[in-house]
């Protein structure tokens, strides 16, 4: 089909929730108090590693109507909130409440009352005596101290990936170059803080949560409550952002357990400080990468050694660590590779999923290293990459899915031309202290789980209604990216039905079918393709039924039903089929993808570094993405703008540091510095749309990959500006000043 003739694909259809959100009327969980619900205030530990010696709730429970559940009441069942399907072997080390606090913000008790004010007041009256143990704050020594933090004594959770003849690669190399890069622990900073509501309804426990994987929430709750999955109904609630922070299960199990025990609805809500300290973070990583090259700069082999900080509990951090390794062979042609990762637990806020699931960390490490290596060896960083980047349909030597219709070389060459790389690559100095330079970075990310350890499929139903409208029943989790509207565009394109008449549901485990969850950048590529296929099946059924009804051939042509040259009204056809044939037009379809191509992106940044203040200003920015096909271009741009904002933060200002006692130095936005609007560049965006096979209308992912190359592009620009080799992120003003001082004088 000719792209220009699309009715909806690629068009900037306004998202269904836009008007309400702009007017502040879009209701989040905390905006609509549930009748008779108890407000639950969690009592969080103020210590990093401490065992509760005594807990005294007498004063708090004297307040009328207060209900208190402490770790002494809680089930011992251990779970891992990152598992989303039975049998995933993520080590379980978390309980709903704990008498051994393993980080500041760990959950000791839940104090409930009819109002938030009362619950918080009562919570503050609970007296806890702790025996304080040494904090485990350094990933480097965490393994040796493991027994102090976790009674299980497990030192680390290791994993490796290996292929090719690495020894030969390194022994025959003309050059061997290595760098160590550290990336910070980061807060997701979704506007909506974490909240969850649990409502006991007869023998069914209903849980409403702004989450990413309802079936995963259901499974976590089932493990602790020992209930059949069918009796736990999880409903995706309206969500004010997640960025992976709401992908894992955090307060859902606690809330469900408390509601079930008290047989009353319980609502848990958190403040910004509580969300920062007690939910999830992006895992901090220290990664050493070593590359073997031949004399022309062709990569012969690469080895990695990483320490990944899981924080207080393992969570999904081992999954993240392995995902990092899986990305290492999907950008450059690397004939031999060894990847060794070690996940350790420290007495700091737990890590877990965060936009990109390890991709930002691994590509930040390799792309900074690539630039520094090129500088040391005198290779041009663009030419070096062009020589080594993967071409289309190459295989992933680590055993992952075929790379697909890769357009990364085109991204880089077009980007370099558009940004004026050649003209701008030499740093410029002005006013004695302002250093301007350009940097860039390449990256890749996936499109689902096909050919990984995890199953990937989606099941949806489409019903065409008797007025010619349609409902797509799908387990979608609208994360704020516009996915439900994008799916409606896909259904509209196939069926010809006006998008405004199409409803796409979100997940409700009682009524929508199974889906692997809104994670792994799979929604457009996998769920979107499922929506396309179920739409095609519905159209096929409609034409067949209409043909039977009219006893004449009915075809679907240019977005409508046609019978012997005459157009038929879709609604009228559905109505008549229902009336006369007693058949409803509803199709169920299960899509099992057989591909998982790579998405690619290359970002360029021009920065000016003030040598005296250490402040970095991003002057110009270009993001160029191999996206297959944009379903809704304004959504794609929105994702890229936000991705850039997060990535600049990781490069320059965002971090969650802890002191040697494990006490967080940052608890709120006064000290956690996100890049705000006045400091954002006005990015130029180029989309390469070359139709990826297997995706709906050729589309592939953008939401996660858009943040992946940003930090490295910024850091590379700063290093080029100062001639420095900064590798310890974020590049705070103090670090930049120090580097500038060392270079200058």
């Amino acid at each position, binding site marked *: 089909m000719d792209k220009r003739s699309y009715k909806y694909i690629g068009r900037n259809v306004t998202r269904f929730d836009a008007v309400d959100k702009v007017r502040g009327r879009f209701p989040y969980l905390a905006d609509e108090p549930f009748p008779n619900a108890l407000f639950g205030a969690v009592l969080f530990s103020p210590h990093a590693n401490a065992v509760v010696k005594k807990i005294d709730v007498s004063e708090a429970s004297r307040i009328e109507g207060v209900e208190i559940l402490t770790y002494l009441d809680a089930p011992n069942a251990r779970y891992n909130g990152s598992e989303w399907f039975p049998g995933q072997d993520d080590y379980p080390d978390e309980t709903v409440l704990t008498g051994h606090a393993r980080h500041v913000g760990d959950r000791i008790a839940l104090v409930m009352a009819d109002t938030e004010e009362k619950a*918080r007041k009562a919570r503050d009256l609970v007296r806890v005596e702790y025996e304080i143990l040494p904090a485990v704050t350094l990933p480097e020594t965490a393994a040796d101290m493991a027994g102090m933090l976790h009674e299980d004594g497990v030192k680390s959770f290791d994993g490796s990936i290996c292929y090719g003849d690495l020894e030969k690669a390194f022994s025959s190399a003309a050059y061997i170059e290595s760098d160590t890069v550290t990336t910070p622990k980061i807060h997701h900073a979704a506007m909506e803080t974490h909240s969850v509501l649990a409502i006991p309804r007869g023998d069914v426990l209903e849980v409403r949560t702004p989450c990413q994987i309802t079936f995963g929430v259901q499974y976590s709750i089932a493990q602790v409550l020992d209930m059949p999955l069918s009796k736990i109904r999880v409903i995706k609630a309206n969500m004010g952002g997640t960025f992976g922070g709401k992908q894992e299960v955090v307060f859902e199990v606690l809330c469900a357990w408390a509601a079930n025990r008290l047989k009353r609805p319980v609502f848990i809500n958190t403040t910004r400080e509580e969300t920062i300290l007690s939910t999830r973070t992006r895992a901090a990583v220290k990664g050493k990468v070593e590359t073997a090259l031949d004399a022309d700069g062709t990569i012969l082999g690469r080895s990695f050694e990483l320490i990944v900080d899981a924080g207080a509990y393992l969570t999904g951090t081992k999954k993240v660590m392995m995902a990092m390794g899986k990305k290492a062979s999907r950008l450059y042609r690397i004939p031999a590779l060894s990847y060794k990762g070690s996940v350790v637990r420290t007495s700091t806020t737990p890590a877990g999923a965060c936009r990109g699931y390890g991709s930002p960390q691994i590509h930040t490490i390799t792309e900074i290293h690539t630039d520094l290596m090129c500088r040391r060896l005198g290779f041009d960083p663009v030419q070096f990459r062009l020589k080594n980047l993967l071409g289309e349909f190459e295989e992933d030597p680590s055993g992952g899915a075929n790379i697909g219709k890769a357009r990364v070389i085109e991204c880089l060459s077009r980007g370099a031309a558009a940004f004026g790389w050649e003209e701008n690559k030499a740093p410029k100095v002005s006013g004695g*202290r302002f250093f301007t330079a350009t940097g860039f970075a390449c990256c890749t990310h996936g499109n689902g789980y096909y050919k990984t350890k995890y199953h990937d499929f989606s099941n949806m139903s489409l019903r065409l209604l008797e007025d010619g409208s349609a409902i797509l029943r799908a387990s979608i989790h609208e994360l704020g990216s516009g996915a439900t509207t994008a799916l409606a565009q896909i259904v509209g394109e196939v069926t010809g039905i006006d998008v405004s008449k199409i409803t796409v549901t979100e997940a409700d485990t009682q009524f929508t079918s199974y889906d692997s969850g809104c994670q792994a950048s799979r929604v457009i590529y996998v769920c979107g393709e499922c929506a396309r296929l179920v739409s095609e099946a519905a159209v096929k059924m409609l034409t067949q039924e209409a043909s039977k009804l009219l006893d004449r051939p009915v075809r679907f042509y240019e977005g409508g039903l046609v019978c012997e040259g005459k157009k038929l009204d879709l609604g009228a056809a559905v109505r008549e089929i229902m009336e006369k044939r007693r058949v409803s037009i509803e199709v169920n379809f299960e899509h099992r993808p057989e591909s998982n191509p790579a998405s690619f992106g290359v970002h360029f940044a021009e920065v000016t570094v003030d040598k005296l*203040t250490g402040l970095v200003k991003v002057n110009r920015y270009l993001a160029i993405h191999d996206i297959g096909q944009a379903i809704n271009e304004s959504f794609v741009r929105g994702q890229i703008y936000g991705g850039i904002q997060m990535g600049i933060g990781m490069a320059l*200002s965002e971090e969650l540091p802890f002191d040697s006692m494990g006490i967080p130095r940052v608890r709120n936005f006064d000290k956690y510095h996100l890049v*705000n609007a*006045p400091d954002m560049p006005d990015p130029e965006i180029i989309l390469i749309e070359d139709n990826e096979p297997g995706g709906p209308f050729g589309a592939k992912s953008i939401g996660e990959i858009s943040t992946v190359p940003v930090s490295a592009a910024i850091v590379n620009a700063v290093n080029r500006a100062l001639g420095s080799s900064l590798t310890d992120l974020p590049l705070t*003003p*103090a670090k930049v*000043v120090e580097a500038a001082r060392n270079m200058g004088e």
Partner: protein
Amino acid sequence: MTGLFAPRSIEELLSLLAGSGEHEKHFIAGGTDWLIKNRGNISEDAVLFDLSKIPELRGIENRGSYLRLGSMETMTSIHTDPEIRLHAAALCDAASSMGSVQIRNRATVGGNLANASPAADTPGALAALNASAVIFSPSGTKELSIEEVLGTCPNKNTLSDSDIIMEFRIPVRKSHVSAFKKIGSRSEVSIARINLAVSAKYEDGAFCDAMVFVGTLGTAAKRSPEAENALLMPISLRKEGFKKALCEFAGRMIPSRSTLPYKQSAIQALAEDVLEMLEARGRSLEKSGEKSHG
């Protein structure tokens, strides 16, 4: 909390204060500091006084020898006021660069000083402009310097609990120029890591009568005599001398703090920028033939 009052005049405030006896008293101006500090933990017996309805605490006017600035004027009203811009440019700089639009619309200059955060922006500017604060209390009014209000303890002013900052008096001085700049983690909505306010008399490219105040080195406005002297140096040596003096000053104020190396670097950038602003303002003052400038 036992009561919230919104008096309509100073007189009414006075009688309410007298009536509130031993209760803990809180004044609320724009509330941008107060709310964050007190939300959820205000004591049972506290009495709150909303200062926003008292006309005597408002207004910006030129009284000939000085500008009268009501303590309840907001950052927005200050930085958009032509008299302030003309005679108190440093204050205009400080008010326009603090917080965000929303904060500037509520935050008052009286609250900024009373709150006494070492990182506050307008106290240094006011001090450099040689402004005084008129303090009102049931026992009478008094006029204090900015440094006297700040005292030596960070985050605590020297006023007693019934004292109110009524207004500021900023001298209108002939041929004077002033400027303020801060460095935070971002260009906007960012608390100062360091800030610098300077006023001086400008004549044929030279400065005299300089007043130099630096913020974040213990309190919001620490005066640096060495930097003031450096501004008197010959033009060819002035910039480097000013930078060096401020560097030494920071070293003297916070000798053992881990942030010192950074602050010493950043203050040199401020020195360059503020000096440039002063010179530019001086030149335009001369060009316009204006007699007085602040």
